[in-house]
């Protein structure tokens, strides 16, 4: 035994550690997961259909092209619906409204929830108490019931659908963001900002907001998934997009009675909606896993 320090192997000279921004690191780790890859591929696929679909539609979505409920033909690829309109063309046109409305509702809901959640966490006391109790009241209603109540009261207006779905998301987002921000409020960097007299608004949006981006991203993905489902359901129930407009939710409703004779009128929009929600769900889930660090120690 010799009391020497091992010098057997040469030590590599210390390389400058390469550091990327946190956002880039997170994005790379997220996309490293197969679930995220699958989600992204499906999402892009649906997005392409939604955006460019109408350009490739053989017919107008409201044009009568064949006998009602007729099967697949050279004229109509997936047959005609119960009124004789081309199913394929209606499918290609029908994604815009649902995705557009869902995105708008998500932005409203998450934005509102973010402001409420951060304010409640930072201001605390009575403000926190009042905001959170109001949120509790809203959350006592199932989202769909709340939406149906308002839409049936004021009529099927698109802005109203977007607004109600958005508002019904807000208390749920607010809870999550408040929880994340509460741990930050007592941290010294917030105290440091207070000691130099930063205005409250700047503390909330300058100090707290950048530190809740991860739960915010996860919430956005989750709320988008729910929005798609909710808006499709509202259209299906006849309170959303009105005929003769082409819309996936509406298509399911219009064609459900002829499901046996002409399955495509229901199947195409069902598959699309399912894939869309699954893809946003997969991506959100992968991101959440990276943020929490579930798969970190391989």
């Amino acid at each position, binding site marked *: 035994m010799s009391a020497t320090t091992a010098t057997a192997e040469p030590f590599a000279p210390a390389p400058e550690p390469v550091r990327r921004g946190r956002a880039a690191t997170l994005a790379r780790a997220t996309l490293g997961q197969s679930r995220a890859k699958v989600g992204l591929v499906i999402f892009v696929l649906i997005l392409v259909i939604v955006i460019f679909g109408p350009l490739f539609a053989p017919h107008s979505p409201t044009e009568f092209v064949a006998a009602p409920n007729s099967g697949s033909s050279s004229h109509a690829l997936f047959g005609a619906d119960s009124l004789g309109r081309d199913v394929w063309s209606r499918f290609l046109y029908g994604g815009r409204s649902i995705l557009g409305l869902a995105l708008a509702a998500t932005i409203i809901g998450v934005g509102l929830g973010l402001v409420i959640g951060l304010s409640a966490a930072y201001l605390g006391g009575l403000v926190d108490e009042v905001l959170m109790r109001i949120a509790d009241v809203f959350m006592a209603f199932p989202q769909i019931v709340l939406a149906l109540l308002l839409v049936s009261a004021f009529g099927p207006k698109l802005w109203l659908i977007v607004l109600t779905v958005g508002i019904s998301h807000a208390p749920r987002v607010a809870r999550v963001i408040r929880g994340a921000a509460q741990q930050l409020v007592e941290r010294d960097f917030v*105290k440091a900002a207070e000691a130099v007299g930063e205005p409250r608004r700047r503390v909330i949006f300058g100090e707290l907001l950048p530190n809740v981006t991860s739960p915010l991203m996860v919430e956005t993905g989750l709320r988008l998934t729910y929005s798609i489902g909710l808006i499709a359901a509202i259209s299906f129930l006849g309170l959303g997009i009105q005929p003769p407009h082409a819309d996936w939710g509406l298509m399911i409703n219009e064609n459900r009675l002829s499901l046996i004779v002409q399955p495509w009128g229901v199947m195409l929009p069902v598959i699309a909606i399912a894939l869309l929600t699954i893809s946003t769900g997969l991506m959100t889930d992968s991101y959440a896993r990276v943020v929490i660090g579930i798969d970190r120690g391989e």
Partner: protein
Amino acid sequence: MTTSTEPGPPASTGAVQVRNLRIELVRDGTDVVDGIVIDVVAGEVLGLVGESGSGKTTVGMALMGYTRPGGHVVGGDVLIDGHDVRKMALGELRRLRGGTVAYIPQDPGTALNPALRIGRQLSEMLEAHMGSTGEQERDARVREALEEVALPATDDFLKRYSHQLSGGQQQRVAIAMAFACRPHVIVCDEPTTGLDVTTQARVLQTIRELCQDHQVAALYVSHDLAVVAELADKVAVMYAGRIVERGPREVMFSQPRHPYTRRLLRAVPDLEGKRPIEGIPGHAPLPGHRPQGCFFEPRCLHAVARCRETFPEAVQYEPGHWVCCYRADDTPKDGPVLASGRGEAPASSGEVVLSAEKLDARYLRRQTLFDINLAVARNECLALVGESGSGKTTLARCISGLHHTYTGTVKLGEAALAQRARQRSAEARQRIQYIFQNPYASLNPRRTIGQTIARQLALFDPGSGRDRGARVEQCLERVALSARAADRYPDQLSGGERQRVAIARALAAEPWVLVCDEITSALDVSVQAAIVELLAELRKQTGLSILFITHNLALIRTIADRVSVMTGGRIVETGRINEVFEAPKADYTRQLLANTPTIEAALGHNGHGA
């Protein structure tokens, strides 16, 4: 002089022999520690000293056959009583841990099970290791173990939960648990780091006596050289995963040969105030980024070409004194140690910039500050010393407007200030700058250093918009950071660098007073020394006043002009620094001074029979 084989002591009970231990990361074979050699015999204490990240805990854990997840032992021997820990089966290891080798953790608050009563936890330990003893016998043994650590062995005490004990009592329960099964070897991992000096002195006394009475071989892992000087018989200094110097205590402290050991000693604050403290620039290389030659070479003042090529082997200079350095026998001294560290103290003008009058503060319903009066003159450094719970942080926060349930007045110059920072004038918020204890929490993790400092400039100097980039660079230069730091995020900097950023941010406001709340307590001694040097320099240059809050008495000796001693929410003594240190008036101050461990005192009067 050549390297030679060290004859190991006979494999008797209570002997630890580690030979060439190497631990790597499983992931890529990066060395965490390497070439570790340790010898401890029964009744002896080896102090393993190193700064954070040096691998000292990893070595301590290896004595119990444990490596943290992600690491594994790839070479060397760990012999306990002559048995190789690396060859033990799981069952043997279980008997070893707690039975033959006991462990005293750094934080007993988390090591004790909060759901079990103290008596239950102790007897559980005995059950696991002493086998089929009767309940009565066990109970008697539990009480004996508590008496050994000077805790009451009453039924009432045995029925308590750990949260009902003070920090010092918790640590003594942990020690009682460690010694209960009569181990041959004990590993102490910074067991006094979280404790006040008074409690620390008592805990150290307990460990020392138990090791001697029961002939236990102890490995005492610590970053605190003064504690090690008081307790250890032998000392090993670790740097970047290697033991760079080891030897008997007296030799290590009086004739250290490795440049790192010498610099480390100069960084330790001296209670006597006879020498200044000096930081070590740079920081230790992390695993995977260690240079090819000597790991200390990039920071070493005496490095020669050879130091860059291969890591020096351990060479014996005096009996038992081994050093890994090519220049150990011909290193010039690091310059003369100054006779007086105080240098030319900036003359404070006597004009009071900050004062507190008749301050009473409460936290919830409890009163935490009682009738506090203090005044800081221009360019003066007033130290505020107290143990945890003395109210010193509450006082600092009252002054800065962060704790607002107080009565009495805080004045900036002649102007009385509102309780809350937000209600104070912009001038007050600018001229009093608070620096937080923990630099890991006081910087926004999602803002770059440049953004953080630029915001401070925007708040207090709105006209600086045009050349703010240049101003940020100036601010960083003042605290000896490179301009490149502006693009970094806080997690890309070391603890010392972060604290410099926090100071730079405070200085960006052009303050009159810096309120420094334990700003070095989260840092290593070499970094602490560098920060203290920086503050002294800034004070000399800019005429700044400093309120320096700390629990570390030795630290303030070289930097403060006056000191106020706090306990139980009251200031018990205030005076010129030398007067208070040399002729303390309050009993509490005397007690604090007596309990503060120092290298000089430990070497002067030898507290234990080594």
